[in-house]
Each structure stands twice: as C-alpha cells, then as structure tokens.
C-alpha cells in the first residue's frame, strides 16, 4: 500500500472518549489527507496537510482535529467521539497538491463509537 500504514486498524470506543488515529508514511510525500467513508456518502475529506505544521479543513471537519509534527506522521483526533463518527477512516498521501496528482491510500481504520 505505497508505504502507508494506519493504526489502529480497528477500534471500538464509547461516546465522549477521545480517540487518536495515526497515519505513517515512508514515501516522504508532502501532502497527507484524512477521509471518512460511509455508505451512501462515498469518500469525504476531513482534513489535509500540505507540510509539517501546515493543515487545513476539508468538507467534514467538525469534531475532528489534526496534527503533523513530522513529515511522516499525520494524526487525526476525535476530541469527544460521537456515534455519528462511526466510520471507516482512510489516510492518503500525494507527492503534489490533491487537485493535480494521484493519491495513495492506506488500509483504513474501522472505528465504532458505542
């Protein structure tokens, strides 16, 4: 999967608890993305990063925060998880800006919020 790993791969948590998902890449790509995938909605962008400490919001950013302190790691945090955040989360990387280049996806994290 193009040198991208996500951890954990599965997580069950309770409403109100904080959750952090990690994306790690070995490709040294500048751009990193977090998406969520839900039935009937396809893939929706949560947040993305265009460099260390440079991040921006996507289409569905409410309730999520991100951090990127190193090129290789992009963290997605749910400050207080809700049942509506039950989803499959995908990290992706790209050598160029998302509007110009292909993206490479990680294997996904299945999150269940009870």
């Amino acid at each position, binding site marked *: 999967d193009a040198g991208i790993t996500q951890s954990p791969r599965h997580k069950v948590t309770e409403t109100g608890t904080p959750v952090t998902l990690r994306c790690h890449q070995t490709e040294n790509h500048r751009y990193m993305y977090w998406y969520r995938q839900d039935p*009937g909605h*396809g893939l*929706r962008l949560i947040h993305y990063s265009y460099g260390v400490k440079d991040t921006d919001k996507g289409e569905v950013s409410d309730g999520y925060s991100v951090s990127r302190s190193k090129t290789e790691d992009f963290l997605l945090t749910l400050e207080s998880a809700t049942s509506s955040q039950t989803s499959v989360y995908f990290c992706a990387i790209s050598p160029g800006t998302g*509007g*110009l*280049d*292909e*993206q490479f996806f*990680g294997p996904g994290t299945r999150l269940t919020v009870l």
Partner: protein
Amino acid sequence: SQQGEEDPQALSIQEGENATMNCSYKTSINNLQWYRQNSGRGLVHLILIRSNEREKHSGRLRVTLDTSKKSSSLLITASRAADTASYFCATGRGSQGNLIFGKGTKLSVKP
C-alpha cells in the same frame, strides 16, 4: 460536496464481458482520476486523465474524457472475477483544491 457521480451504482456481468462505468461532473477540472476499492481495503489509483486528453489506456483499462459533456467513462475489457470491486471517479481542479470523489460503482464479475 460530491463533484463526480458514477453511473450505474451497481453492475453485474459475466467473466469475459466488458464493463463500462460512467462519471459525470459539474465544474471545470484539471484532471479526472479513477480508483478501485476491493472490499475492506483502501483505494488504489488506476488511471489519471488530464483535461486536455481525450482517451487513455492502461492494460485492460480504457478511459475517455469529454470535457464538453463533463463526463468520463471507464471501460474494463475482458473482465475477470478479480475485477470485482467498487470503482470511484475523482475530479481534480488543479492547485486550487483537492480531489473530490464520487460515490462509486459496485462491479460484480461472475465466474
């Protein structure tokens, strides 16, 4: 907001047949990309076609782009059971934005 919409939502064919999926979009684009997703896995990039290109081939894949109709098609020739997956189109608008994905076409190839 979804830019690309795939059609049909689901497609079932026999092995050896060709599969055609379509994608329509609303605004001008820099490029259009197709991705495949096997069940329970991440998306895999298949092909990227730029707005100044009309057709592109990669193995058994043929992609066309008609910017005047704001549509693209993905043709998989001589399909195999291993082609069973969901296929997504994604539109890129250049340096101004990110990729926007459609909801996908679910292809089932029966042996």
